[in-house]
């Protein structure tokens, strides 16, 4: 009994344990449900999985199933980010315990009963519990906002290295607070249409209605919700990485106000989609996205400059190659910012290009082609956020030497290989005709499947290793039980 109690205490009572559980849950869902589509479906694996697990797949419920799947994974990711925030930032112990406890029950309830409802026969009690889980996560979000409240003098800072006001208001904390508050508010843009489900509101996937000139307020609300939630998850992970790496100095002082401004304006633009401001909402969104992305760029510049400086400190006048070598020496510290930069190729770049050439190129193609670009580029963004979390997690694990190199570079290379191929796949119609595309599609699919497949294998190895570790009386988990992320912020 003590054996179970100790492990339970680690898994659900420590930050690193909670993060491990959430990553494991996402890994399990990804591994199983990844077999229901794409090449796995082509190979017939889908049918085997459906039969083996007793899933009940109704054709007309596909869109609803996918929405619940996305929510299940997203809630676990939000939980991971929340654990990181409560582990990195100062807050009252009560709040930390309460937030972590409520969000854990919330995302597990959402995931287990949501997926049960969606894939194993529509049991409405399960649907109710799915909604209960989401409500708990919302409540945890509200508590996080209270815990992060930056105008509490207790959290004022005086260190000149970090952005703060004359009074001592911690601008980084304000940025976290702004992201948390807007996340809670933005969740309502999904919750309200959801509450009308069965009363006139019908399930739809945003990518299927993009070209319709008339959309209802509920539809706009859902479209806004899904965009802003992903953007906020990205903003939050940027802030988390900044805190982990101990972002400071002049660039920090410039970046934090920009991040706050960007977060607020971006949200106002997205919320404006359901108001009479809709015609100019996109313009407001662009205005908001620019300072946020610029702030992320400043983090990258600071991070990479520091890596070069630190890793070439023993060389009097390092040349370019030595600097480059210094930059890439530690993939776990180089990787997060690199992935943010790479995101501009897979997501922002594509998005901007599409916006500029929409009517000229993309709307000449069939809607199904445009759907590939839309779904492709935000799947890529989601995957990049996941890799950044995994890179940080690698550091949390204390990986060293070759294992650290292998783990870090594998994540970077494999994900970038797959996501580059995804991006080329999205844009293939620019340079190849439908009739002649198959060899290219095959090549890209090899790259995507290899990249994502091996990434999942790597994740599986880590999870198996952690599982084995849990059976050891003096395993790594015993050390992690008392470790806190704030103590591991890089000096």
């Amino acid at each position: 009994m003590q054996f179970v109690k100790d492990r339970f205490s680690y898994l659900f009572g420590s930050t690193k344990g909670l993060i491990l559980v959430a990553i494991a849950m996402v890994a399990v869902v990804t591994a199983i449900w990844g077999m229901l589509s794409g090449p796995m479906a082509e190979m017939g694996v889908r049918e085997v999985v459906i039969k083996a697990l007793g899933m009940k797949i109704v054709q007309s419920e596909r869109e609803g199933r996918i929405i619940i799947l996305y929510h299940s994974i997203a809630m676990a990711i939000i939980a991971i980010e929340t654990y990181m925030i409560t582990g990195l930032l100062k807050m009252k112990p009560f709040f930390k315990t309460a937030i972590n406890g409520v969000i854990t029950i919330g995302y597990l309830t959402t995931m287990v009963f949501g997926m049960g409802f969606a894939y194993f026969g529509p049991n409405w009690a399960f649907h109710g519990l799915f909604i209960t889980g989401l409500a708990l996560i919302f409540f945890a979000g509200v508590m996080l906002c209270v815990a992060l409240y930056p105008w509490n003098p207790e959290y004022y800072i005086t260190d000149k290295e970090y952005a703060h006001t004359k009074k001592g208001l911690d601008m980084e904390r304000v940025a976290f607070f702004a992201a948390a508050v807007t996340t809670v508010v933005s969740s309502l843009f999904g919750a309200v249409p959801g509450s009308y489900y069965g009363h006139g509101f019908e399930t739809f996937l945003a990518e299927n209605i993009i070209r319709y000139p008339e959309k209802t307020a509920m539809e706009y609300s859902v479209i806004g919700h899904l965009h802003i939630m992903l953007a906020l998850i990205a903003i939050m992970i940027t802030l988390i990485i900044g805190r982990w790496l101990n972002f400071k100095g002049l660039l920090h002082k410039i970046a934090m106000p920009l991040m706050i401004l960007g977060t607020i304006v971006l949200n106002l633009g997205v919320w404006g989609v359901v108001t009479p401001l809709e015609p100019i909402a996109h313009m407001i969104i662009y205005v908001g996205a620019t300072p946020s992305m610029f702030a992320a760029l400043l983090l990258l510049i600071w991070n990479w400059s520091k890596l070069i400086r630190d890793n070439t400190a023993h060389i009097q006048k390092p040349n370019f190659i030595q600097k480059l070598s210094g930059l890439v020496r530690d993939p776990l510290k180089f990787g997060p910012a690199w992935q943010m930069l790479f995101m501009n190729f897979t997501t922002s770049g594509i998005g901007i290009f599409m916006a500029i050439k929409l009517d000229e190129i993309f709307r000449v193609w069939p809607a199904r082609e445009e759907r590939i670009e839309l779904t492709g580029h935000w799947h890529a963004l989601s995957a990049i956020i996941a890799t950044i979390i995994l890179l940080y997690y690698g550091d949390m694990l204390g990986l060293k030497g070759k294992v650290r190199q292998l783990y870090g570079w594998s994540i970077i290379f494999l994900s970038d290989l797959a996501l580059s191929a995804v991006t080329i796949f999205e844009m293939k119609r620019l340079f190849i005709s439908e009739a002649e595309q198959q060899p290219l599609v095959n090549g890209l699919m090899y790259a995507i499947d290899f990249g994502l497949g091996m990434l999942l294998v790597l994740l599986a190895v880590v999870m198996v290793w952690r599982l084995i570790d849990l059976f050891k009386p003096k395993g790594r988990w015993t050390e992690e039980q008392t470790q806190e992320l704030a103590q591991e912020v890089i000096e």
Partner: protein
Amino acid sequence: MKRLIAFMSLRGADVLSRAQRSRSVRSNISFNKRLLRAVALATTFVLIASCAPVDLNAPMPDFETGIDPDTWAQVPAGEFYFGQHNHIETTDAYEIMVTDVTVSQYADFLTTARSDGFIKIVNEEVIGFYPGDEFHGVKHEERIAAGDWLFMPFNDPSIRIVATSKISWGAQEGYENHPMTTITWFGAWGYCEYYGWRLPTEMEWEKAGRGTDDRPFPWGDEILRENANFYSSRDPFEDMSSFGSRTSPVGFYNGRTYGDYQTLDSASPYGLYDMAGNVWQWTGDVYEGMHYRFLRGGSKDTYDMDLRLWVRNNATPAYFSPGVGFRCAR
């Protein structure tokens, strides 16, 4: 396993000596080089595989399906379930083609319509008059003015129509009973218009495929590979290692056995074939505030989810593709 665990559990000393650090750096650089080489090799392999040329005229299996493309199905007036959420809608009675318009049928149309002056051949393109749509100036809406519009190109490598003389056309050998593709909405509209018919509305199209129950596919609730021609459905016409998926003869999935390939009878409740897969089908609705025309049925190039009867696709009316065809209603 123990060694693996021990290896993975390594936690190097926090402070390394300069010599140790130097060795570690060299080792890491060497490791990174090996990793880079492996990635470069894999990338080269993928690039080579991706650049292989495609033989668009690879031999096509020749099967007679026994389904006459000149037949029409009767659809009675009445209510039916429309769309994914089963809204109850009503149509008048109408007739709709049992199959997609074939390459042979369209070639005959080109021959007669040209001699009648209904279409013109200009710069290797078939063009014809379309009376235009009302323009509302909605965002992204493009004006479709009255005038000559592209029906189909002759210079596209996917075209299956060949000239048999200076004034007549026929189907490429092996494609006679395949659906006519690489045709714009104007070209589909023109064909139906020429014979005094019309393109089916979306509602008519869906009712013809679905009947009066809420089935997702013309034949029922589930889809198997032997039901329809879709992406990677392993039919006798596809080769996913080279040219990919190709069209199948109209009415192919009728329960017959072709060589060693057994199909399932996949007709709709009103006896229509290919209402799921093979080629997307243009429908006739022109909606206010948008110039896009809607396509139904999924195709040889889409996954089975797009073969569900309520799934909508759309494109500009001048769009053409080897995966798009049509049928008429009257």
